């Protein structure tokens, strides 16, 4: 059922976003603590990067139906 497809996509988006945000945050904290003397900016950078990646992934996922893939072209 296609109505569930959208819901699935959203779930994946959120999960992916949470993971990436968390990962980015974590990495940012680590780097900030380890290399950048507890500045804030690596944290914001990491989280921002994570969020951005999640956003891009989600968008791509939702667009995937309309995009032509290389596999389709070869077919």
């Amino acid at each position, binding site marked *: 059922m*296609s*109505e569930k497809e959208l819901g699935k996509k959203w779930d994946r988006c959120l999960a992916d976003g949470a993971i990436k945000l968390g990962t980015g945050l974590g990495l940012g904290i680590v780097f900030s603590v380890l290399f950048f003397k507890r500045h804030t900016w690596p944290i914001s950078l990491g989280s921002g990067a994570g969020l951005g990646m999640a*956003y891009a992934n989600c968008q791509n996922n939702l*667009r995937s139906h309309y995009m032509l893939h290389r596999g389709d072209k070869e077919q």
Partner: protein
Amino acid sequence: MLRACLRGANATARKNYRRIPLTSLQQCRHYTAGESSSASKVVVAGLLTVSGGIGGTILYAKWDHKFRAAVEKNVPYSDWLLGLALGPPAQDPGLPIKKRVELAQPPSMIEKQVKKSAKKEGAEGPVKDSSPVPSKPAQSIEEASAEATHIISAISEVPSVPAPCDTEAAAVKEECKECHEHKEATAVHPAPTEPMKERPVEEVAARLAQQEQEEQDISASVSASLEDSLASSAKATLQAIGAQEAALQAIIQHTDKLKEAMEAEVLPEEKSNQWKDLEAALADRTTALNDARAALSKANESLDSLRSVIDKSKGLKISSVRPLVLAAEENLHNMVVDLDKMVMKVQSAESEAKIVSQYSELVNEAKRQFQREVSSLTPEIQANWKGLTGKLSTDDLNALIAHAHRRIDQLNRELAEQKVREKIHVDAALEQQKLEDQKALDNAVNTVLQHVKEEARLEQERKLAELREVMEAEMRTQLRRQAAAHTDHVQDVLKVQEHELKAEAEQVLSSKMLEQETRYRQLTQEQLDNFTLDMNTAYARLKGVEEAIDSHVVAEEEARKAHQLWLSVEALSYSLKTAEADVPTVPLENAAQAVRDSCRDNDFALALAAALPEKSLQRGVYSEASLRARFNSLRSLARRVALIDESRNSLYQYFLSYLQAALLFEKSQEAPPSQLSSEDLDPFKLLSYASYCLEHGDLELAAKLVNQLRGEARRVVQENDGEGARRTRSNGEPEVLT
């Protein structure tokens, strides 16, 4: 508004920061001031940039129209702003100017042509009007010539003008001239009012005829009068001449007789006879002379009358009369000449007779004197002179001799006297004769001079008449030549016209003939077609009747089979409609099998039955209620993704679509219109229409409406519709089969 708030905030911030003392919070102030000043700077800079951008856009749009059009297309409400700033976009001026110019030109040309033609007509009018005005006195000849040309042009066939040098032709011309002269006086008045125009043929002919008639009458009358007077004068003259002749003869006779009487020595009896004859002759002579004189007077009278008549007829100035007049004048002249000759002869004879008579008188007188003397001398001798021969004595003889001597002396004396007297007499007579001769000569010279003058005048007149005739003949030949040329030209034109008309007529004839033929063929074809049609219809009807009878039997069988099929289909549709509550789907296998059994020999029905999708047969078709429930859930989903399609599918668009679904409210059920317009294709509206249809049981329409969804909404709903399609197909099958 946001900008205004920002500005206000900036202003207040600036004010606030200015109030704060600078010294205490230097850092902060620096920080905050810098921040505020930088912020204000930034804001101001931003504002300037934005305004500069807008101004630049407007300026560039003013300069480049394509850019303006692109901006208006892409940026909403920019057309309003640009319209406010620059005014409406300029139109392409293009071609209308040229067209207007071109249109202006032909009317001017047409006007020019109209003007030209008007000018021409105007010029012609005044020319025509002015032509009759000038030189009216000289109009006669011009008019005559113009009218002659008009006449010749008007008359199609130029009649051979009576060529004989007759009085008639000359009379015509003279009459024409006279008539023109008469008309001149009358034409002066109407000439300025109406322009010269060609007289109609009939009028000209009538006028000519009238003129001819008049001339003929006048000439006839004149000739008659001339002839009468000529005849009378001729008669009188002849009479006079005859009388003169007679008188002459009488005179001559008389003189001869006188001479005879004087000279001849004849016997006394005969002498007395002679004297008697002489007297008779003298009487004759006198009577003859009287007669002659009377006749002469009569002749003179008649000649005078003739002369007056001639003068009168000359006064008429008709050329036809001129030869007559000339002839009459010549006759008159001749008569006068003859008369004068005769008169002269008579006069000469008279003078001769006078001389002779004088001489005879003298002789008689001398004779008488001698007798007297002789008788005085010898009275006795006289008594018997002849019988005195024997008785003569010497005394008598001596006396006689002395008397004789005396007589001889006397006679000699008388002779000398007579000689002298004779000489004187002869001189006087010679003088008289000379005078008379002179007189006669003068008379003769005068008469001859008169005659010569008369002859010269007559000659001149004759020459004039001849010259006139020659010129007339020449003019007539010229006119004839012109007429001939004109007739040739007219003949040529007529030939050409004849050709043209013939060609035209032939063309018309051929076209009419063609028409008639085609019509005839058409009619025959129509008749044939009608006949074949009738035959075909009759045959077809016959066949139809036969087929109807045959098909009856077949139809009965078919009807039975169809009834069976229908029953099975009804069973199928019932099974479709009735949906069991627990099982969402109803397998249609049994019903379909029944249908297939009932329509074994009908291929169409078999095909249709086979067309039932497999899935529907095995698994069954969803019932209506289940479909309805699903639709409601799907509706909310479709609402949520309404804005998403191929071009708009970013996350931001998804956010906007969700926002729209949350904020937009539509009727849950709305009756769909009979015709969908473009604004009805909004997904929200479509969903409400579909819901309505679903509630009212029209699954087909609902499916169609849902099919109109586009983009993500369509994709989301599609699976569901797969079921719906199957359902509708299955629904439609029984209907079709039925």
